[in-house]
């Protein structure tokens, strides 16, 4: 039955020591064959622990494999060259000085740190030591995401008609049955080979071969091996994590199934007796797996703790494998297992029975957590000695042993147990029966509060090993029955999965302007704005400072001409004869009366009068408007418009055309001369006024031109179909060459707009800002018919403002506050800076800040924190540059 071929050997490293493995070995099997018995140290007491379940359920084999912590080596296939190391040990697995903590466990009863470290400074002082001394593996250090060395995770989606969980005989039968009925089936199995427990019981080999062969040959059946379902959610959504056979990272699979069959079988859980965690104590199914799957003899002389046919079967198996079976004892006869680290005997009333292997025929617990998650109930069955699933949702069903088929109790329930500090109910968290009793006596006598106080069942096994025991202890101590005590809630993820798998591939969406590669060629230094990549500025030389680069671009715009890519601005076309009505309803200004060919600044407020977004609205024709929004709010504005359109019956059609337009802003005293070379449109002010729009051609491309001035100079926003973007950009740069044109980036644009005191929504406003406090009261037209926020804005107009957005000029040379700096009054915080930059035209820094209303007086001096110290500034309400706006109208 052993699947390893002795002829195919390889080695891997355990703490730099080579371990020989055979093909088909798990890491744990190879280590065990090489004589390793201690695999981990326990969570709190650092007790040595060895293989127990050999099924990936218990915490006894969690090790670090190739840098990944908490790998269950008993089920992880060995690969040549892999590096395995213990975790949570000091200094070594064999000799861990922290095991001495057992001697002082009387100082650390359950919940001791809740009661002891009640003062924060004390807790802060001891917490690092507690965390260091207790716990599991450490997360790998952060790796540079661009180095290519950090793991990458895949996700995928599977749609199926029937999902079968479990590759044992019941799961295989269910999959075959569904396939025969013509359904598409996805079979999800934790193991590398189908068959479940049939894989390691020699008498079932032929049955396994036939069933697995039929499934593999069946039409429409997809088998996901080495895959675990960690969550069963609404509408048949299953979270599945799959481990690749050849190493690498686990992948997350979203399975959507019309019907789910849970055939996850049973899990064997330990029994309660003193020293039930010693190395050499193994579950009967673990022994079967070692012998059946890997051909490993687990000991020389064994005592079997169990009763009935199962104990008899294990005895035969051991004898057939050459193990001397010293005795089979009933669980209630066991007083303790003896030994310091490794079991050396079983003590009963009749004396000590020497052995090096204690085989425990433990509780067989239906693996029904997923059924519980799906909304089913778990009810106690005295007959089966287990909690069995009932009242399942219509699309979920259970099959096989998970339903309780053929189950009998290993011991009477609730079980008897010793009140011992060495009788472990929870191996993951080192919670003993003594701890549980103490907690129950302290009042935590409900199974849920007991769980939270003691952390029983909250470790890596998530209750698989310990839930039945802890319920038993609770039931016995409280005098309630098992059913009355009940089970704790099963929540995903169970079993645990890595956060990386949940996060998925590292390919966050990136938006690129049609001019992206043009910017790259011009030396753009990139910044992320939401999902957009935007040029912060263009570095002519690598050693230029940001200030020098920005000043160069700034002076081009103020003195000659500059061009900036404004493609990321949200762009929406609104068409239909009722478009004006919708815009009047949603925006605070009037747009139904806006004349074709005109542009207007536009603000959206919510029902409370809070500013949500701003932009421009151009009326291209009677039934055709062109809207721009802030870069980050595009999707919201589209949804907002559509929301308020619903049920109106109006003829309005809204289309997001952002990606389809390449947009640039050509600005500066020479902007007209540059554009005039590329278009027949009359750009003179008499024909093309400030806040007007025209359609025509620019460099041969169909274009919409808006004469607006975010940067405070005469300028035109030019929107062309994206496919013409590069051509138009190059044409503008070529036409502007003789005028000294320069492309400029977002940082330069921010300086230019700040000098004009132009607000950026979301930067200079927040979730409470309204137009009156933001010093743009003229955007609200309260006299127009009802619009979103009108009632609130009416109230706000007459109410005293809490805060105001003010402009300020720094009075101290060289002091430039950072965005977010505090405004101070008499040494106390009195506001916050939203934007501040050095103004080249003013020769000092200027900025915008929110301050209390009474402070917002023209000319008043305030303090702004710069570098942690207050610096003097003066409030100025007018724009810092061209306050009359003459340059915009030239």
């Amino acid at each position: 039955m052993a699947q390893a071929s002795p002829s195919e050997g390889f080695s891997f490293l355990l703490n730099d020591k080579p371990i020989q493995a055979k093909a088909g070995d798990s890491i744990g099997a190879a280590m065990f064959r090489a004589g390793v018995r201690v695999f981990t140290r326990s969570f709190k007491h650092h007790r040595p622990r060895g293989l127990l379940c050999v099924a990936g359920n218990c915490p006894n084999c969690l090790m670090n494999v190739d840098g990944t912590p908490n790998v269950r080596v008993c089920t992880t296939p060995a690969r040549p060259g892999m590096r395995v190391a213990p975790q949570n040990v000091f200094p070594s697995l064999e000799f861990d000085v922290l095991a001495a903590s057992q001697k002082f466990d009387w100082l650390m009863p359950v919940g001791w740190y809740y009661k002891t470290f009640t003062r924060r400074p004390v807790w802060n002082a001891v917490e690092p030591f507690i965390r260091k001394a207790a716990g599991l593996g450490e997360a790998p250090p952060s790796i540079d995401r661009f180095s290519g060395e950090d793991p990458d995770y895949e996700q995928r989606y599977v749609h199926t008609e029937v999902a079968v969980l479990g590759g044992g005989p019941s799961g295989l039968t269910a999959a075959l049955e569904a396939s025969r009925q013509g359904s598409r089936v996805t079979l999800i199995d934790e193991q590398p080979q189908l068959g479940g427990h049939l894989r390691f019981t020699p008498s079932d080999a032929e049955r396994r071969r036939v069933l697995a062969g039929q499934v593999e040959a069946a039409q429409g059946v997809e088998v996901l091996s080495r895959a675990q379902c960690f969550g069963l959610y609404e509408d048949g959504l299953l979270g599945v994590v799959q481990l690749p056979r050849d190493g690498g990272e686990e992948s997350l699979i979203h399975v959507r199934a019309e019907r789910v069959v849970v055939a996850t079988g049973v899990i064997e859980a330990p029994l309660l007796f003193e020293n039930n965690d010693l190395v050499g104590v193994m579950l009967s199914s673990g022994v079967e797996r070692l012998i059946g799957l890997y051909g490993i003899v687990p000991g020389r002389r064994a005592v079997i703790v169990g009763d009935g046919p199962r104990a008899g079967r294990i005895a035969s198996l051991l004898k057939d494998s050459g193990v001397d079976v010293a005795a089979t004892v009933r669980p209630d006869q066991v007083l303790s297992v003896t030994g310091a680290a490794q079991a050396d005997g079983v003590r009963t009333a009749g004396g000590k029975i020497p052995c090096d292997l204690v085989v425990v025929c433990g509780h067989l617990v239906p693996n029904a957590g997923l059924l519980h998650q799906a909304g089913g109930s778990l009810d106690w069955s005295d007959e089966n000695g287990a909690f069995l699933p009932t009242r399942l949702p219509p699309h979920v069903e259970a099959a096989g042993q998970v339903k309780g088929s053929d189950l009998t109790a290993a011991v009477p329930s609730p079980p008897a147990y010793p009140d011992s500090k060495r009788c472990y109910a929870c191996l993951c968290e080192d919670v003993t029966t003594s701890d549980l009793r103490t907690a129950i006596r302290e009042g935590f006598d409900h199974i849920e509060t007991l769980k939270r106080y003691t952390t029983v069942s909250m470790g890596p096994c998530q209750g698989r090993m310990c839930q039945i025991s802890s319920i038993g202890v609770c039931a016995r101590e409280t005098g309630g029955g098992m059913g009355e005590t009940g089970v704790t809630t099963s929540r995903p993820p169970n079993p645990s999965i890595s956060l990386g798998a949940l996060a998925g591939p590292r390919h966050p969406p990136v938006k690129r302007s049609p001019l992206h590669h043009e910017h790259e060629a011009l030396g753009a230094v990139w910044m992320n704005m939401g999902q957009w990549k935007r040029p912060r500025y263009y570095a002519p030389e690598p050693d230029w400072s940001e200030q020098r680069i920005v000043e160069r671009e700034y002076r081009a715009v103020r003195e000659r001409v500059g061009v900036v890519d404004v493609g990321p601005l949200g762009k929406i076309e609104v068409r239909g004869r009722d478009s004006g009505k919708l815009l009047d309803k949603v925006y605070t200004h009037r747009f139904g009366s806006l004349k074709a060919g005109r542009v207007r600044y536009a603000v959206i407020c919510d029902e409370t009068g809070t500013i949500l977004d701003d932009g421009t609205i151009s009326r291209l024709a009677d039934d055709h408007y062109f809207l721009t929004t802030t870069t980050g709010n595009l999707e919201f504005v589209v949804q907002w418009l559509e929301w308020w359109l619903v049920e109106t019956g109006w003829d309005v059609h809204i289309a997001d055309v952002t990606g389809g337009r390449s947009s640039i802003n050509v600005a500066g005293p020479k902007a007209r001369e540059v554009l005039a070379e590329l278009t027949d449109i009359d750009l003179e002010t008499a024909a093309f006024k400030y806040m007007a729009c025209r359609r025509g051609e620019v460099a041969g491309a169909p274009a919409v031109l808006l004469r607006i001035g975010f940067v405070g100079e005469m300028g035109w926003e030019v929107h062309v179909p994206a496919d013409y973007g590069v051509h138009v950009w190059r044409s503008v740069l070529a036409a502007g060459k003789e005028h000294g044109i320069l492309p400029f980036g977002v940082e330069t644009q921010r300086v230019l707009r700040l000098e004009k005191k132009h607000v950026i929504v979301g930067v200079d406003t927040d979730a409470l800002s309204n137009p009156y406090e933001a010093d743009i009261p003229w955007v609200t037209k309260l006299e127009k018919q009802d619009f979103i926020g009108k009632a609130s804005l009416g109230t706000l107009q007459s109410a005293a403002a809490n805060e105001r957005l003010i402009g300020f000029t720094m009075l101290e040379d060289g002091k430039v506050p950072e965005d977010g700096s505090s405004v101070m009054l008499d040494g106390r915080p009195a506001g916050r800076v939203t934007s501040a930059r050095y103004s080249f035209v003013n020769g000092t820094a200027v900025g915008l800040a929110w301050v209390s209303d009474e402070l917002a007086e023209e000319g008043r001096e305030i303090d702004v924190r710069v570098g942690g110290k207050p610096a003097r500034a003066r409030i100025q309400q007018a724009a810092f540059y061209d306050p009359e706006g003459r340059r915009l109208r030239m």
Partner: protein
Amino acid sequence: MAERCAQSGATVVVERGWETVSHYTSPEEELEAVRRSVGLADLSRIPKFDVRGGCSDTLPELDAQAGIWPQRPGETLVTCPPESAAAVREQLDRYASAAGEDAPVYVSDVTAVYTALMLAGPESGNVLGRLADIDASDTALPNLDCVQTGVHHVHAMVARQDLGPLPAYLIFTGREYGEWLWDTVMLAGVSCGIQPFGSKAQQTLEAARP
């Protein structure tokens, strides 16, 4: 996209005014890869028309090569080969003109608004399954059907337009996501041996369409 492909060594030609990748390696090699496994082509150049209003759910008889992809009530995306663009546009404009004032129809050329990638080949469904939460099986998404979905939370429309016996899917997203989508699909297809293919191979494959 064309500029980027050119940087990677693809052969770029101008077809009907569009810079188009003719081939990345050789048309024969690309054809073989698509027929054997899966290939990806940039079809952003195909004409796309947004038809809204009126009864645009029931469009008139269009050019036989046109793809009609309903988006939601009153909204349809129409695609066609570049050589049919003028004819399809004319048919749509005629339809809009004939619409009554009570239910006006608006037709917009949205060719530049959407990136369109074609994922084709026997493994294309598997690759799609690594990108989007959709059932790409023959029963759930038959030929000439479409579905709206998300690719890594980016809104996308997936339309099935088989190339004769080969399953093929058109994936539409906003143009601004174009390069990202290309990279994402290529990465998702690595384990299937995905191969980019150009217009030469695509035209040969299109010829298999009935």
